[in-house]
């Protein structure tokens, strides 16, 4: 605060450095971060090295600790340690895009564009000045998928197949990123715009919350089939109402500040006010919440895997491992306990990290 210290404008790096400093001041957050980092390192390691091939039955089935199999083998003789290590990949490290036709890609791109365009147009539509532009945007968003469908069917695009490949960052993180985008936009509109927009948006989202979550997941997966992308979609949609509620409450509080009045008296667009004036000040709690949500998503993937509706084989996922090892728990408890331990430590780590960070942030706010 002294006048002689010349301060610098905040950069991405200085922000990260600030957050790391905050984390280091909280023991809980530090422990949480260590637990999460542990699994990230394990996941990265598993790409280049695992003790055994995770998908090959190399040992005697259902045996405990033995030479070469530090944590035992599962019911068809695969190495528990290797499988648990590799299980990190689908959750945190990579998302597998299956074999699809170009037509399907076209539809997918149209779908994502429709959602993004809709999210951009929705604030405009709720603003008096840009209403027309917003409604045009919404209409375009609504017809994108049918048009893509017609194009795909009328040309030969459906017959050209692109082989499967993987993109970086796992299912849990993409899913949460999706719910963050969807939820925070809807929440910001509801909170800042208020009135009818608030009621309509929040009522739709509340209806979504009213469904039991696991049923919602099962409905989506049953309708669209098993797959990494479907899982991301399911996590994004079911998470969005919660994020939206948080974003809305933040927007409601922040919109009463004078700097929002100042922006309004400058005639700023609603889009600018929501994303440039409100969002940067609401992002802290939203990110902490997102951290928790990654934990929930890991849990969800585990649960669905346990129900046999999780991520498709062959790559191992922790929930599925537990499910498959369940009948032989008495003979080979490690096959259940090791992936269970993995889920627990990752989820608890994320929770501790988020809680600790949240505590530190709020401590300095007042």
């Amino acid at each position, binding site marked *: 605060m002294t006048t002689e210290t010349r301060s610098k404008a905040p950069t991405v790096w200085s922000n990260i450095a600030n957050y790391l400093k905050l984390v280091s001041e909280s023991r809980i957050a530090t422990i949480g971060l260590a637990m999460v980092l542990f699994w990230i390192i394990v996941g990265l390691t598993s790409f280049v090295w695992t003790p055994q091939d995770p998908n090959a039955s190399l040992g005697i089935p259902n045996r405990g600790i033995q030479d070469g199999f530090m944590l035992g083998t599962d019911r068809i003789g695969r190495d528990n340690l290797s499988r648990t290590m590799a299980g990190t990949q689908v959750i945190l490290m990579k998302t597998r895009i299956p074999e699809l036709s170009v037509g399907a890609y076209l539809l997918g791109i149209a779908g994502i564009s429709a959602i993004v365009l809709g999210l951009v147009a929705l604030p405009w539509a709720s603003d008096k000045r840009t209403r027309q532009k917003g409604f045009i945007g919404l209409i375009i968003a609504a017809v994108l998928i049918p048009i893509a469908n017609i194009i795909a069917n009328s040309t030969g695009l459906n017959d050209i197949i692109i082989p499967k490949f993987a993109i970086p960052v796992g299912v849990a993180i993409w899913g949460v990123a999706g719910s963050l985008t969807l939820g925070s936009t809807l929440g910001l509109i509801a909170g800042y715009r208020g009135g009818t927009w608030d009621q309509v948006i929040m009522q739709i989202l509340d209806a979504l919350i009213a469904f039991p979550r696991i049923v919602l997941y099962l409905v989506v997966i049953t309708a669209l089939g098993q797959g990494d992308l479907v899982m991301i979609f399911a996590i994004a949609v079911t998470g969005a109402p919660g994020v939206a509620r948080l974003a809305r409450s933040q927007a409601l509080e922040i919109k009463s*500040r004078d700097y929002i009045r100042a922006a309004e008296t400058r005639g700023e667009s609603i889009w600018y006010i929501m994303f440039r004036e409100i969002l940067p000040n609401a992002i802290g709690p939203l990110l902490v919440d997102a951290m928790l949500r990654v934990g929930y998503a890991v849990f969800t993937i585990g649960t669905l895997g346990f129900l046999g509706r999780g991520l498709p084989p062959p790559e191992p996922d922790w929930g599925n491992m537990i499910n498959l090892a369940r009948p032989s728990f008495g003979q080979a408890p490690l096959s259940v306990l090791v992936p269970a331990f993995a889920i627990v430590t990752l989820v608890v780590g994320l929770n501790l990290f988020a809680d600790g960070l949240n505590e530190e942030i709020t401590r300095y706010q007042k």
Partner: protein
Amino acid sequence: MSNNTNDTAVLKCENLAIAYKVRGGEIEAVQNVSFEIHKGETYGIVGESGCGKSTAAWAVVNFLGSNGYVKRGNIWFQGQDLVNKDGEELRKLRGNNIAMVYQDPMQALNPSMVIGDQMREVLTVHQEISEEEATQRCIDMLEKVYMPDAANVLKRYPHQISGGQQQRVVIATALLINPALLIMDEPTTALDVTVEAAVLDLIDELRREFDTAIMYITHNLGVVARVCDKVGVMYAGEMVERGTVKDIFKNPQHPYTQGLIRAVPKLGANKEGSILYPIPGRVPAPNARPSGCMFAPRCDYVTERCRTEHPELRRVGTDNVDVRCHLTEEIDAAAWVPGDNIDVPDLTKRNLDTEPIMVLDKLQKYYDVKGSSILDALGFGKKRHVKAVEGATFSVPKGSTLGIVGESGSGKSTLIKTIIGLEQATGGEATFLNFDVTTDLAERDPGLIQELQMVFQNPDSTMNPSYTVGQQIGRPMERFGTVPKDEVRGEVMKLLKQMRLGENYFDRLPRQLSGGEKQRVGIARALASRPDVVLCDEPVSALDVSVQAAILNLLLNVQAEHKTTMLFIAHDLSVVRFFSDNIAVMYLGEIMEIGPSESIYAPPYHPYTEALLSAVPVPDPSAIQKHIRLEGDIPSAIDPPSGCRFHTRCPRKAMLPNNGKICEEQIPPWQEGADGHKIFCHIPIEELATFDPVISAPNSGVAV
């Protein structure tokens, strides 16, 4: 209770030092504080924010939190040492003998409990008293604080009574245990001036009746002058001067006290005739205090000795005044000249146009009220409105300042929100240059938006915490394209310089700025689009007096340089008088009186203006002020009183025949006085002119 005579102090603090444990050490928030309060005496503690006033009070009741403790010194309460008492003993003593009243009554009262339960609890927890007796005593006490309909108030929730009544309940609750010591921490700061005046009267009366010792914490010198017998001035955690109110206001010894008094506009002072002198610099943070005299870095008289040697509190002269200053004997306050680092607005260049830049004609703003009945939900209910602004008619000449005063709920904020377009007018006409300004912002031309900008009240929320100073000042320039993109930085630097902020502020974040600095940035941002009109919504009311003076000077400089027209809202009548060329007095959405500022503060007065002026706390204990108190609360704006809206509370209504029947039935006429002075009242202006001035101060010779 112990047998106190008048000479033993009820509360005595000796060399009190209070420290807070923080990460990486300890902060001594308060040090070297000594004072005593006797029975039936009101002891004022004044100083700017961050000087440790409240901390000292919390130490007495041991509310320092888990990391605060009394490091040195003693607190004697009725002869018992409070510092070394353990929890339970202290709790008993406190519960039976010490009571505290806080600033915000809504936070002191539990919103989910009826008032009766909260009050009775005070009696039943610490004493063996039956419910019936407790209720009776509560009613008696509420009647003593002039609460109308006391028995029924007990059955209500806090939100069902007004702010002034809430504070009465808090005071009554505090007095229930008949405390030997009553600590009041800014008890009237959140209240309107008329309500404040009534509460101050009450405090004075109760002290006489109950013989309580009162420790009164405030930043307002006017309040001190009105209610306190003795005063202690605190600066940077230390008591720098103490003595009787009369002595200190007549002849302040410490340079800080002198500076404080110079920074406050006197009621009746105007910008042409007098100058406000801010104290340069700011209160040092507790961990960055100088080793010598705390005030040395800001003092005009500083010598080498002040920087190295810490002064002790000592008795000077024949007055009963103790001062912590090495140089008291050498300082002559009358011979003071402002230092070079104070910039004083130059108003000589100002020549006012008479051509109006903004004209309002019967501007009206109603808000729809949603009923809760089924008919309302279906849209068949009777339409009701909050009549926030009604018939606002005035014109503002270019380059002048129109001050708008009134209590909260008078519609002054709604009026300027309507002008700037945050609200849409529901009737009447308003033009600015040739633009229609009755529409809301979404329908306005960018050229118009650029010309009307606003300065906000709360320094903590006026800046977006996520952006640097430079970004925020530069944004309007980019948005309106007033400055080419590559010159924005240079232009922002120019503005920063004009705001007396260095270039190194460009990259700072709001959290690195003090309240006054944030307000400067807010002003710079409002000026960045080069507007013709700046609307100021209480721009200085959240600031300390010395900072307030600096900001007012800054605004005056800006106005002189750019010929900016200003609309200035403030609840502090001295500030409005000082700052404005013309003043409009508003009550319940209507303008009651409007005219050149000197004519507002002298007879003929509108009866409401007269009441407002007589309520203002004047920082001069020898001033004689007329005693007019308004009865009751501001009526609801949904069904405002018929005829003259002020008739339900008007103290002069009886002057008219039939006890002012005409006021209830007919809307009053606009009566014109000299220089465009207009009064909205049935009482003939000749009669209003015969009233005595509200305040006469024998010392300064100022008559208002």
